[in-house]
């Protein structure tokens, strides 16, 4: 009885699945899914390497400072960095005085100590990077109805984040004529910009890094578009994971200890079971 019941329940699910499968297969044959411009023209991120990659990776602090400069002079016009405080910049190798000076260069929201009214004041090391827009509505109004995302976590918030950021920054091109020819509806709309590394190929952000020397580096590095894109990507790896170095270093210590403990554990296991067939 139980056997018959279970077979009946089994048939209920399997027949329903076969029915779904059959209908799905029929639809596939009669109305195959039309190819899309995204499926055909979207590109996976370019291959790019950073000093922080790999199990022994460490930040290149010169590069992080350059990347910070790119953020400050280019990206920060539209993108916030709200999880990072000015004091964190000490980790990039800036001295206390330099951090203070950098913070003071930003204007942050404050409160008038006499009237209690909202005002602004120069930043201090304990402040977080201020947002360029008062709120999302203001951000939309200024950016063709798109909110520029906060960049603190951007390299962890995208698949292959660092390579994605680098590819996006260096990937702006004219829309291929082959695309428009094959998919006339997918022509880049006015106000958007074609970039094959963006999921739906068109984004509101215009190419931010456009010319060599857009930023003048203090350390003499030639500020090519490719260099600036790499530097700012490296900086954004740091903003997303400031504890990256400590994590990897701790990891090796922990693995070393565990390996030792495991070998001891194995030897004690062999010792205790010696002579006991199992």
């Amino acid at each position, binding site marked *: 009885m*139980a*056997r018959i019941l*279970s*077979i009946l*329940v*089994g*048939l209920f*699910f*399997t*027949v*329903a*699945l*076969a*029915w*779904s*499968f059959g*209908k*799905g*297969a029929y639809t*596939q044959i009669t109305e195959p*899914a039309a190819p899309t411009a995204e499926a055909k023209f979207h590109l996976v991120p370019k291959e790019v390497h950073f000093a922080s990659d790999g*199990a022994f990776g460490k930040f290149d602090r010169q590069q992080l400072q350059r990347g910070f400069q790119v953020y400050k002079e280019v990206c920060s016009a539209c993108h916030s960095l709200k*999880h990072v405080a000015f004091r*964190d910049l000490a980790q990039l190798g800036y001295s206390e005085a330099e951090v203070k000076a950098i913070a003071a260069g930003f204007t942050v929201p404050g409160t008038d100590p006499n009237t209690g009214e909202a005002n602004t004041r120069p930043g201090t090391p304990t402040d977080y990077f201020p947002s360029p827009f008062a709120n999302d509505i203001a951000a939309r109004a200024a950016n063709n109805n798109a909110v520029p*995302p906060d960049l*603190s*976590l951007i390299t*962890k*918030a*995208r*698949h292959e*984040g660092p390579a994605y950021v680098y590819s996006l920054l260096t990937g702006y091109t004219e829309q291929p004529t082959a695309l428009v020819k094959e998919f006339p509806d997918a022509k880049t709309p006015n106000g958007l910009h074609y970039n094959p590394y963006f*999921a739906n190929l068109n984004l509101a952000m215009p190419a931010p890094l456009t010319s060599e020397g857009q930023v003048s580096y203090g350390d003499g590095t030639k500020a090519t578009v490719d260099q600036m894109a790499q530097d700012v990507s490296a900086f954004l790896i740091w903003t*997303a994971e*400031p*504890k990256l170095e*400590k*994590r*990897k270093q*701790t*990891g*090796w210590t*922990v*693995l070393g200890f*565990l*390996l030792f*403990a*495991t*070998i001891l*554990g*194995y030897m*004690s*296991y062999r*010792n*205790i*079971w010696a002579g*006991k*067939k*199992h």
Partner: protein
Amino acid sequence: MSFPWAKQYTPSHPFMKWMDEKLPVPRLIYNAVGSGYEVPRNLNYFWNFGFLAGLCLVLQIVTGIVMAMHYAANTGVAFDTIEMTVRDVNWGWLFRYAHANGASAFFVVIYIHIFRGFYYGSYKAPREMVWLLGVVIFLLMMATAFMGYVLPWGQMSFWGAKVITGLFSAIPLVGEPLQQWLLGGFAPDNAALNRFFSLHYLLPFVILGVVILHIWALHIPGSSNPTGVEVKSESDTVPFYPYYIAKDGWAIGVFAILFAAAVFFFPNALGHPDNYIPANPMSTPAHIVPEWYFWPFYAILRSFTQDFFFIPAKLMGVLAMFGAILVWFFLPWLDKSPVRSGSYRPMYKKFFWFGLIPAMAVLFYCGGAPAVEPYVMISQIAAFYYFAHFLIVLPVVSAIEKPLPLPYSITEAVLGKDEGAELAPAA
């Protein structure tokens, strides 16, 4: 209960004698995981995963309590409190990554533990209650993990919560009110986040309670073993301490190395990048996927794409998804073969290795893939086999299969026939 030859707890120190009279906790430990618990001598490494699962539970509770010290269950700040924990709390990043990856480690271990049970027939008499409690633990784990994933209030947290609670709306008549009651609103919001946090803190302790029952129920018949032959004599067993403490100890080492490698070098590999974007109810992610450990069941849910007679496709999917786990409750009565171990069941063994395992692997893969062809059709085939395996194949195979001859005893299986026969008691 225990085998007659099991060692007895005999306290020698006056304090331990005093303690044994008032509150015999040392005796309990001695009999549960000490020298008083006799275990088959022939357990292979698949039997280490129960101990490892217990370790994972402790790890999750400890790291979780620390995370909760820095977390605030409020949609306005939840995401930021976790970032604050990772950036500004001493070792906060370690606790966060250990807790997030700890959930994955727990499921890796538990899936191996469950499939060990499938292969070796661990669910069969006299261990049905052990099995049933185990399935309860698995369901509680899924609920806990699901609610835990909502807490960071990232994009996948929000949309995952929306999709999963949306499943309840498929239930006829009461579905919609039920969903609103569960969420405390029409969509996941502060009320939902708050209660999920409350339950996420509660359920691990419920799990701990059921784990104690699970171990209690196990200790009545004693552990099963790879031959599936029950313990017959003293030569079949060894005391848990020191033998299996030593074996589990070194297994913990291997587990810890793999776990540390994940936490320190690939901490985000198993997470979805979208959960580093704060929740936004106005922006739907391109692909909503749950955490990897739900993928097989998520694939089953999405396999039902057509209405079946009067049952809407969505309800079919929900029934099947829950049914896929609930069927495990009936396993002891679906598989009536008197032989426990798959090693002595030639037919069952084939269906296990060439049916269930590949079907499960395919469901794992397809559950994480976008819901487009060919993934849907592939998961339909795998789901077809999944249900057929438990509800049709298993009852039929157990009726018609001719099992291989079993060894007389565990000792015989280990030492060979001649030596074993000597050690076996005269029948």
